[in-house]
């Protein structure tokens, strides 16, 4: 379970300070699939970055399964407990699809076990991109890249999958497919998903939708 209590985050905007998150609280139960929507600049990505431990909150407490993140080894948290899918995929162009998928594995060990490699192939099979195993990611389409990014986020079997506008650069057909895949991940792998999106269609596949406005979350559905 992820818990954010009274999280506050401010940014310096020229001479004035802008409060992006203002005492925000959120509880994400295990197995939940929530979507966070909001206007551009509302702080969605900031919230996701704090949840991904990539950004520190100015105030408030963030816990995972009751343990404050501040007291945890962040590299371990990012590697084992959290998977992240970025809007721009952030795949490394020098590697093939499967190599990108296996990158998180090699953060903790120098050699990738064969079983893990097999798991990567299974995930790719599951995502419908098995045939792209040895394809350089530079030649993949947007949808394929998003699927590779999802596989990479899932390879270490994380507790939570954080997705930042995962369909932001996709056409509607691809967006629909990705939305289905997220549902599949949540229902079949029981992975908790927190998805930031400005797309109502994408948000509709979540179990619960929050809207971020004035630094606080409001439940929308």
């Amino acid at each position, binding site marked *: 379970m992820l818990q954010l209590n009274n999280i506050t985050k401010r940014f310096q905007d020229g001479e004035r300070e802008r409060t992006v998150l203002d005492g925000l609280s959120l509880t994400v139960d295990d197995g939940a699939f929530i979507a966070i929507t909001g206007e551009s600049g509302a702080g969605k990505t900031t919230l996701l970055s704090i949840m991904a431990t990539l950004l520190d909150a100015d105030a408030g407490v963030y816990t995972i399964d009751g343990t404050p993140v501040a007291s945890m080894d962040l590299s371990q948290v990012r*590697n*084992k407990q959290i998977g992240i899918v970025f809007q721009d995929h952030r795949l490394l162009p020098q590697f093939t699809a*499967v190599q990108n998928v296996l990158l998180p594995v090699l953060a903790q060990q120098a050699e990738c076990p064969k079983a893990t490699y097999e798991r990567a192939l299974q995930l790719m099979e599951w995502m419908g991109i098995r045939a792209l195993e040895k394809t350089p990611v530079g030649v993949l389409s947007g949808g394929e890249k998003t699927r590779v990014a999802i596989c990479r986020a899932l390879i270490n079997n994380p507790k939570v999958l954080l997705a930042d506008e995962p369909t932001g650069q996709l056409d509607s057909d691809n967006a629909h497919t990705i939305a289905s895949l997220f549902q599949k991940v949540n229902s079949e792998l029981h992975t908790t998903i927190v998805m930031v999106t400005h797309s109502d269609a994408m948000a509709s596949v979540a179990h619960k939708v929050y809207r971020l406005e004035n630094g606080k979350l409001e439940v929308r559905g």
Partner: protein
Amino acid sequence: MNRRLLIKESRTYYQRYYRLVALAVVLMMMVLTGSLVLGDSVRGTLTDRVSERLGSAETIVATGTNFMSNDIMQSPLMANARGYLLVDGFLSDGGQLIPVYVWGTDCDSVPYGEAIINQPLADKLHLDLSASAEGWDGALHLPSHTLVPSGSLFVTKSYATQMRLHVSAVKDVKSGGNLLLKNEQTLPLNVFVNREQLAEVMELEGKINIIMSDDILQEDALAEVWTPEMSGIHSRGNTLTTDRIFIQDDIVLKLNPEAKYFSYLVNDIINATDTVPYSFVTAVTEWQGSPLTGREMLLSDYAAAHLHVAKGDSVRMSYFLSKDLKRLETREQRFLVKDIVPLEALVADSLLQTEFPGLSNVERCTDWDSDLPIHMDRIHKEDEDFWYKYHQTPKALVAYDAVSEDWGSGFGTATALVLSDDGARDLTMSDAGVMVIHPREDGIYAAQHGTDFSSLFLALGFFIILSAVLLMQNVLEEMYIQRADEIGVYRHLGYTQQNIRGMLIREACGVIAVAATIGVLPGVLYSSVTLWLLGNVWSGATHTEGFALHFSIVTVLISWVIGIVICLISLLYVINKQIKQGV
């Protein structure tokens, strides 16, 4: 799949950057290795030169400006030694005088009238003796080199002796053709001639001035066989004279003699209008048990008669003063005639008869051969008669202390000593100027510790090395800026900073290591080209006959390690800077 594969894939993908990095490393290694190999080569060549110029000699016994009797070579200690009479000379070649070292040697079986030259001199003379069975004829010009040091007062420098010779062979380096005692890097021009012939021409019969031994001779051992007589210091009874005429002051002080004699050619002894020109006068501390002090003079009856003076009168004496090596001044002193002594008594005292070459050995005053400005028109018949009969017998004795400061010089402060006993036994080889040198050790030390060409060329190449390092840093920095997102992704995926730094270092190190290894080859080429330039185009600056390429694997390894360390420091600096900037 493993991290090594990721590193390899990244290196391949970013090869356009790494090619430039490799180029910078190769450039840096070229200068670095080249400079160190240059230092090795210069040191190696100079060390080789030491062996060439010393041949097999481990010990050199040098006599300085003195000479030594060849008798010392009869000692068993000299079983593996060669005695040389070494003088500077000039070889005439079609009007051109080539300065050469002339080695009078008993070795090499050089017959009378023949000579052997070394290869550099043969090259200088454009002489190919293998093609010319007749050899080559030339003349050797030898400077004045009597037993009396050149530059002493009364000794002319105008002596020049010529020696005809027939060059019959060339002595190569291995046979000791390039013998040279000076610690110089230029190849010597050597002429080897028969020692006896050279000694005869230079009036140095039975003398040598250099001994080269293949054994390491200790000074103590040599002192056992050396006698003052061998160095021309003659001790008869309680008297001491030397072939050099002048007895050096340190010997005089050491022996603390009972009496000191200093014979000198004075210009005039004068009483009013009467003058006795150009007379030998001896300064003595005492004579026949009677001390001479102050301004006292014992005048011969011959001079007293010519000057019309009696005991108790005073006379003036003028003489040349040479304080600045033959830049002459004239000084005059007045002396009180303490007594008139018979000329025959002066003739009978051999210590008063100092034989100056060019003066004593001629029959007439007008035949005197001296650099002194002697006005022959002042010499009359009675003076010639005196000279014919008595030669250098002094016409007067004066107090030693009155003139010793004027007459003394660096060559000596006495011409004869009377000792209290056989004090000459206290003389050592070094008193006589004999030095025992172990030149190989000194020569190799000098070769190894001379101008450090490694540092010199490293300094000259510093800006190339700096440019290469900056080029490498800029390229790496640009690459890491391009890969900022990638480094961010690694962090998002749980890679620690240490992991990321390690991967980036390994990625670049592979390129650096290979480039550094490749860079050794152009480094050796760089040093070869520089050595060629030093030996040819820049030979005037180095004053050498060129250098040969020498390098050790240790030097190459050192330069490789230094290059790698410089690259690693630069690499770490760039990586840490990028990571600190929050990449």
